[in-house]
């Protein structure tokens, strides 16, 4: 009888510990601090105490107490999901579109998928010294419609925009109205079902749509990037709802963007760029790589004259139809970058043709030359788009090199892919 009780008690305790592990608590001990450290200590005490007693005390009550204390966010009780959406809309906690109610259960699943404790700091916006906690990331990701398996990508994108090079505050507050273009590479793309082909900039794919949206909701709700408040965009663009794609690595012989920028092959990575709206171009009238790229160069020159002259990270998105012509001619991504570095240039005098004659005589004078790229490496070449059509895109930087593209490996993405 005694043995039977002990076995039953042990199983209950094991189940309790398993449950705690599933919540992501306390998986990362070094990040546990302050109040959470106290709770963790308390949890250990309870577990040890239960093991010593082995008498089947109600584990569920202990677990629930711990969960409620571990999350710091205020809780609102409402009639249903529609009422929850109305509350969030009224308080300006969305991008204007409906949200998925962020319940504790869903937030916990997201934290677990990212391998983060609620209090872990994902990143800090350095100018206003605003930390972004994992708990708030998970809440906003649930609201955006993310599945838990998307969280490693969301977290990596936020870590990337918090790097000094990205200049998050400047690029999000500016009248220039930039969005974050997010490019995902590596095994996580297929594991979470991202789209890299048909309508890649458009609607239709949950992972693409909600990962970009989650980053935007974090900017709104955690950093206060609200139009007319901290976000001073004159126009902004549709990418501010979401602007996230995968690179079509399966249908491209070229190395992925993240691999070109230092992420090891076989490891997932994310690249972020503070950008203006994509400019679609088309050339289906030649097989010559140089002629194809001249169409892109013309768009880059046009952007330099009509929007911003300053050199920085442009992104170039090449669809399969154009890629195949490049590949057949033996061109690599490096060749594309070097060609466009040479070709995408304008002179100060060219401004006279676009209504900016007043500034032709300034600076270095009419013959002053400007390049779109500071070096060939400034160009981000991405293979993406549907299989038919010679439509590509030039994605201009927000303001030259004031914000620089950042690439990061995605931690823990592969193990979470099947969730």
């Amino acid at each position, binding site marked *: 009888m005694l043995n039977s009780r002990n076995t039953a008690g042990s199983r209950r305790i094991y189940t309790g510990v398993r449950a705690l592990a599933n919540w992501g608590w306390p998986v990362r001990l070094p990040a546990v601090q302050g109040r959470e450290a106290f709770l963790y200590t308390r949890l250990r005490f309870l577990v040890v105490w239960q093991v010593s007693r082995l008498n089947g005390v109600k584990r569920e009550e202990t677990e629930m107490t711990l969960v409620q204390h571990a*999350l710091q*966010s*205020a*809780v*609102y*009780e*409402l*009639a*249903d*999901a529609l*009422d*929850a959406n109305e*509350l*969030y809309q009224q*308080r300006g*906690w969305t991008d204007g579109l409906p949200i998925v*109610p*962020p*319940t*504790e259960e869903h*937030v916990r699943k997201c934290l677990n998928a990212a391998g983060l404790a609620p209090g872990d700091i994902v990143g800090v916006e350095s*100018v*206003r*010294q*605003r930390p972004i906690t994992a708990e*708030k990331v998970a*809440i*906003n990701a649930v*609201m955006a419609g993310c599945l838990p398996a998307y969280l490693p990508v969301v977290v990596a994108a936020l870590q990337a925009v918090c790097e000094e090079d990205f*200049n998050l*505050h*400047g*690029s999000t*507050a*500016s009248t220039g109205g930039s969005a974050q273009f997010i490019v995902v590479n590596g095994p996580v793309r297929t594991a979470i079902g991202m789209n890299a082909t048909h309508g890649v900039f458009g609607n239709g794919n949950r992972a693409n749509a909600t990962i970009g949206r989650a980053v935007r*909701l974090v900017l709104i*709700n*955690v950093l206060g990037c609200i139009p007319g408040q901290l976000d001073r965009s004159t126009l902004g663009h549709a990418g501010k709802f979401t602007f996230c794609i995968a690179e079509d690595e399966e249908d491209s012989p070229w190395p992925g963007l993240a691999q070109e920028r230092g992420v090891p092959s076989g490891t997932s990575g994310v690249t972020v760029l503070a950008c203006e709206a994509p400019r679609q171009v088309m050339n289906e009238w030649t097989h010559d790589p140089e002629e194809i790229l001249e169409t892109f160069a013309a768009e880059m020159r046009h952007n330099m004259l009509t929007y911003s002259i300053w050199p920085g990270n442009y992104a170039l998105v090449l669809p399969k139809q154009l890629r195949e012509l490049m590949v057949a001619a033996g061109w690599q991504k490096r060749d594309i970058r070097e060609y466009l570095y040479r070709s995408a240039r304008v002179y100060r005098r060219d401004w006279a043709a676009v209504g900016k004659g007043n500034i032709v005589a300034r600076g270095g004078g009419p013959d002053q030359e400007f390049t779109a790229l500071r070096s060939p490496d400034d160009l981000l070449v991405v293979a993406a788009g549907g299989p038919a059509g010679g439509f590509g895109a030039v994605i201009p930087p927000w*303001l030259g090199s*004031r*914000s620089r593209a950042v690439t990061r490996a995605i931690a823990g993405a592969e193990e979470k892919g099947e969730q």
Partner: protein
Amino acid sequence: MRIRVLDPTVGEATVTASAAAGLQSLAGCTVGLLDNGKLNVRQLLDHVEEILRARHGVTVVVRLKKPDASRPAPAAVLAEMTECDAVISAVGD
């Protein structure tokens, strides 16, 4: 069944700085003029400097400049500002 949802926002950051006491007069003061790096701000501040010296008795004007309008002033520039009785941060364009 009712639904319980979590707040996605954070509270306002704690304010640790306090406002300096206002100056009764600018006469004899050192005033810093911070150029935010945008076009035309230099001309604007030239004019401000003239007014400060001619009409308000400002004796020392420290001209400061941010190298990048979209980033905070560097630490060295901030340190120079602390030597001033007042600073005007100007936005050009």
